[in-house]
């Protein structure tokens, strides 16, 4: 029996579609250059020409919010895709084979997990440079041992099920057991966690750029826009508000989507 996904799920999905479309079409949309100064007078309020107004440098805020979403989305989805590649594949192998394979990968993951994630990312970014790709890879690497742990434990519980033994008894080769019996059942657990992970990755990037350690200025990111906004908090709080709202609604949507999928797939609510 399937539970309904509910209105909150569809609203969240709608918001995500909107954000993704805007990010994809940002170049085509009639927006001024997000990094161009003085496209209009500084510190304008919202108007018909500049829907969200302008910042102290006279840059168009709407344009910056939309272009800023690109960084969040690329880092969020890109890093988790990388994390899945690294952590997901090793997780399935470790969970299914156990023994020495498991020992090897698990020890590696535990070493990675011993580092506080931000420190590791900061170290990587400091020495590799503040480019979008370095940030994405750094967050992906830091996230992969966590994804590994989730996939590994999900695989372990699936591998014990008797249909896996039955498939081996029929004489299925290992790749077939993994592809037809193990993976589809692990994937179910994974989907919900992956969305949460994307949210966490986006938050991580935003925190980095708030600290001035993400993609270098003047590229617009939600994090550095919020940071800029805090400087004028008393005079012009609205500058701080727009990127904060964009970030909040995006993370909320992702969390809601993840939670509804989790309930739908009957996965237990746990962060480990």
């Amino acid at each position, binding site marked *: 029996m399937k539970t309904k996904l509910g209105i909150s799920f569809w609203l969240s999905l709608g918001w995500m579609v909107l954000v993704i479309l805007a990010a994809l079409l940002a170049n085509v949309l009639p927006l001024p250059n997000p990094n161009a100064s003085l496209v209009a007078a500084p510190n304008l309020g919202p108007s018909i020409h500049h829907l969200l107004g302008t910042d102290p440098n006279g840059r168009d805020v709407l344009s910056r919010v939309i272009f800023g979403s690109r960084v969040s989305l690329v880092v969020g989805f890109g890093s988790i895709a990388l994390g899945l590649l690294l952590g997901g594949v090793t997780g399935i192998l470790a969970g299914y084979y156990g023994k020495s394979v498991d020992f090897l990968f698990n020890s590696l993951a535990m070493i990675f997990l011993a580092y506080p994630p931000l420190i590791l990312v900061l170290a990587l970014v*400091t020495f590799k440079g503040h480019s979008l790709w370095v940030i994405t890879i750094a967050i992906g690497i830091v996230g992969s041992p966590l994804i590994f742990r989730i996939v590994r434990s999900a695989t372990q519980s699936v591998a014990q099920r008797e249909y896996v033994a039955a498939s081996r008894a029929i004489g299925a080769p290992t790749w077939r057991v993994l592809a037809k019996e193990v993976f589809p059942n692990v994937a179910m657990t994974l989907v919900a966690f992956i969305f949460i992970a994307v949210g966490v990755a986006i938050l991580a990037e935003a925190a980095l750029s708030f600290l001035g350690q993400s993609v270098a200025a003047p590229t617009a990111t939600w994090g550095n826009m919020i940071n800029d906004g805090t400087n004028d908090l008393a005079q012009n709080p609205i500058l701080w508000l727009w990127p904060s709202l964009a970030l909040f609604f995006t993370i909320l949507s992702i969390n809601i989507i993840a939670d509804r999928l989790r309930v739908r797939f009957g996965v237990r609510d746990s*962060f480990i």
Partner: protein
Amino acid sequence: MGCKSETQGERLKKYILTRLAALIPILLIVSFFTFLLLNLLPGNPVDAICNVGCTAAGHAQLTRELGLNKPILTRYVLYLKHALEGNLGNSYTTDQTVGQALAQRLPITLELMFLSQVFALIVAVPLAIFSSLRPDSRFDRLSSSFSFGLLSLPTFVIGTFLVLAFAVKIHLFPATGYVNLTANLGENLKSLVLPVITLGIGSIAVYHRVLRSDLIATLQEDHITMAKAKGLSTRYIMLRHALRPSTITFVTLAALNVGSLITGAFVVEVIFQLPGIGLLTITSIEQSDYLVVQGIVLVTTVGFVLINLLADILTAVIDPRIRRARV
């Protein structure tokens, strides 16, 4: 049933000892990787110290002075030897040693993190208990959505919002700055109110959700039905029978959460200009103060590993089954 002669206490002691012994190789590997990472990556402390006017000869001499021409393994062993003696090197940019800098900054960050967890637990635990007593009631749904919202709020958004509301608009608390604990306790706490709330809010959401779902699952177990069949009161069952097994995942989670707590602490320190480890890290990175960064990574990592070990021991104390399974 294999070793009935051992008492529970002996088993626990043995468990802790095994875990402590396993800690040494982990710390060695972790510190080596840290060293390797910071040394193999491009970007060189000599470049950082030498400015544009640095000659090639000066460059080479500095490299020799810093011992950077020796093989990496030798350098690691030397670093480790010095580290064990309490010497983590000198900062290039200030006249402090790395050890002094850490000793000055670390207590501030620790106080912030500790207080924020106390705050988070005070709010999250009762919320979770009331939610789990009546899952899907109006209270449960309201508090769940509330924590869902909190979970989606980045620390720096909360922080700046609190500054705007309580410091800029109504001047209730200072927006920035830190008063030393030893100097004036009252002022110290007052200066930490907003940072602690900011940092704690993220933990509230995580703790509430996990403890709630764990309690709900525990309350459905057979042994709870049996406890009810004894005629025990709901309050007693909750405190004596449900909360304790539920704390196991909770403790493990809290330890893992320290990772994101450190991230949060850094951000909070920047917002409120608290002179803790976070602020030190950011400035050191900006100034490529390489030995300071290395020291920070080493200390936080060791601390992180120790906290997770503590959590493991704590779960073994709570759950007698673990002692046997993991030894």
